């Protein structure tokens, strides 16, 4: 029995012609990092919403099948029980930022206030998370005056501060520059090390190859592949489904075709580097 289980889940948005999610079954282990890949429109955000329970609660449409969390149907959890357990970072940070407070510090503290956390603990947790997400210098700013990248970091901070067991994160780095993006992945890695379960939508394949444990590949609302990252990301045929593969996989394939002896299933730059050093001395 998985930590989170999807059993034959389908969902069709109201008035939509075809299902956004079709017969999806997945088993997610506690404390692992799952990356969701797929073309835009393949159902990545829908899957996140289903796992978080926003579908069917906040979206109209028809859902069949069942989602289980720790052996109990997700629909039997109240929103109050679920909110501290599962954090969701939206794709568009505008949707995350409540605007209920007029500076970034209070925006990040807002969720904890709602959970009734004591003031000194709020102070401590918010400061820690601002340090982690490089948002401390924005503390006094109005959340709506921030750049896209700054908003994205504040949105992430406002969820991290709640310290949920499960983090569902939808494209957290689309507005970030490369260094900021690495910082976000570093934060996610640290979250995983503290036992959190991570479910992440991300197009940046090199970072997925480096950080994720498992990969879920979607196409037209269906899971077309799911498994350990080395197994999934080394399948060249996924390119025919519009999936970008890590450059190590593509380069190693070309090297093999030129007669070089390169082991299969190397997905990160570091793995290919080590193989090249082993076989060719450099």
């Amino acid at each position, binding site marked *: 029995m998985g930590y989170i289980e999807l059993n034959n889940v389908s969902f069709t948005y109201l008035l939509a012609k075809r299902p956004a999610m079709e017969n999806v079954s997945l088993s997610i282990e506690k404390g692992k990092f799952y990356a969701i890949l*797929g*073309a*835009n*429109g393949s159902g990545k955000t829908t899957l996140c919403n289903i796992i978080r329970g926003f579908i069917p609660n906040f979206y109209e449409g028809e859902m069949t099948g069942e989602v289980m969390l720790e052996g109990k149907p997700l629909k039997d959890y109240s929103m109050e029980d679920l909110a501290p357990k599962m954090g969701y970072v939206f*794709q*568009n940070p505008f949707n995350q930022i409540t605007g209920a407070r007029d500076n970034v510090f209070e925006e990040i503290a807002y969720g904890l206030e709602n959970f009734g956390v004591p003031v000194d603990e709020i102070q401590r947790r918010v400061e820690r998370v601002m340090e982690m997400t490089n948002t401390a210098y924005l503390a006094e700013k109005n959340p709506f005056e921030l*750049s*896209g*990248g700054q908003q994205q970091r504040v949105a992430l901070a406002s969820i991290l501060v709640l310290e949920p067991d499960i983090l569902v994160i939808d*494209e957290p780095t*689309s*507005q*970030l*520059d*490369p*260094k*900021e*993006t*690495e910082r976000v992945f570093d934060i996610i890695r640290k979250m995983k090390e503290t036992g959190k379960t991570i479910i992440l939508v991300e*197009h940046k394949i*090199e970072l997925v190859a480096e950080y994720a444990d498992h990969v879920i590949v979607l196409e037209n609302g269906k899971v077309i592949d799911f498994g350990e990252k080395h197994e999934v990301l080394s399948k060249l045929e996924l390119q025919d489904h*519009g*999936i*970008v593969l890590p*450059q*190590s996989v*593509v*380069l190693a394939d*070309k*090297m093999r075709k*030129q*007669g*070089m002896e390169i082991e299969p299933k190397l997905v990160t*730059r*570091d793995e*290919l*580097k080590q193989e*090249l*050093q082993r076989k*060719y001395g*450099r």
Partner: protein
Amino acid sequence: MALIEFKDVSFQYPNGFSAVEHVSFSIEQGESIAIVGQNGAGKTTTVKMMNGLLKPTEGTVVVDGMDTRSFTAAQLSRKTGYVFQNPDDQIFHNTVGDEIRFGPQVLGFDREKTETLVKFAAQVTGLEKDMDENPYNLPLSIRKFVTIASVIAMDVDIFVLDEPTAGQDQYGIRTLETMLKILREKGKTIITITHDMEYVVNNFEKVMVMAHKNLLRVDHPRKIFMEDALLEESMLIPPYISSLVKDLGIKEDVFTQEEIIEYYLSRK
């Protein structure tokens, strides 16, 4: 004379925040240029001065012989089209078709020219099937193409694209690449801000590196991604092959997948 000429340009926002300091460069007709650098480096402020959305507070910006301080943004926008970072900053119509048609209509193009431009714009951005859709029913990545198509339909000579690759999947990146090729063949000048170094390597021969409000370097990506000090100063992360070559301690000039394979085959 260059198509775009920045001479010792600085820009300070009205609140006193200085975003660009003493930047000089020139861009020739038909060039295709990537501007890279960290958030806050001054990239967006720089490109906004190319179509008069911002006027330099010091120095001069001349676009096709026009000193931008002597022309309105409306006049300059006939020459330079700007695609915003966030598509929702520039979408106002109920259908994709109306949105794309709006520009050429406002510019007073006749019906035939308007329709030819709209058709071309929809074609190169892959939007032909979405013309009757409400833009807000389309994913953000496709909405970005709606704003690009709107600018193409205005028949401008200079395209400024602010982070077109953000949030794009493989289909989106390929569409962008094909589109750039077609626009270049038509002699258009293209200036793209991007964080995607693989996109830079695959599509641009000239790169402007910005950092802390300054222009550090204009050069071929092959040169730029080999210079550790420059990369460090601008906080850039080099593309895959350059990083791999560096990790492996290869000193030779190796920049593409083909070159690294050749390197190994020749060492055998």
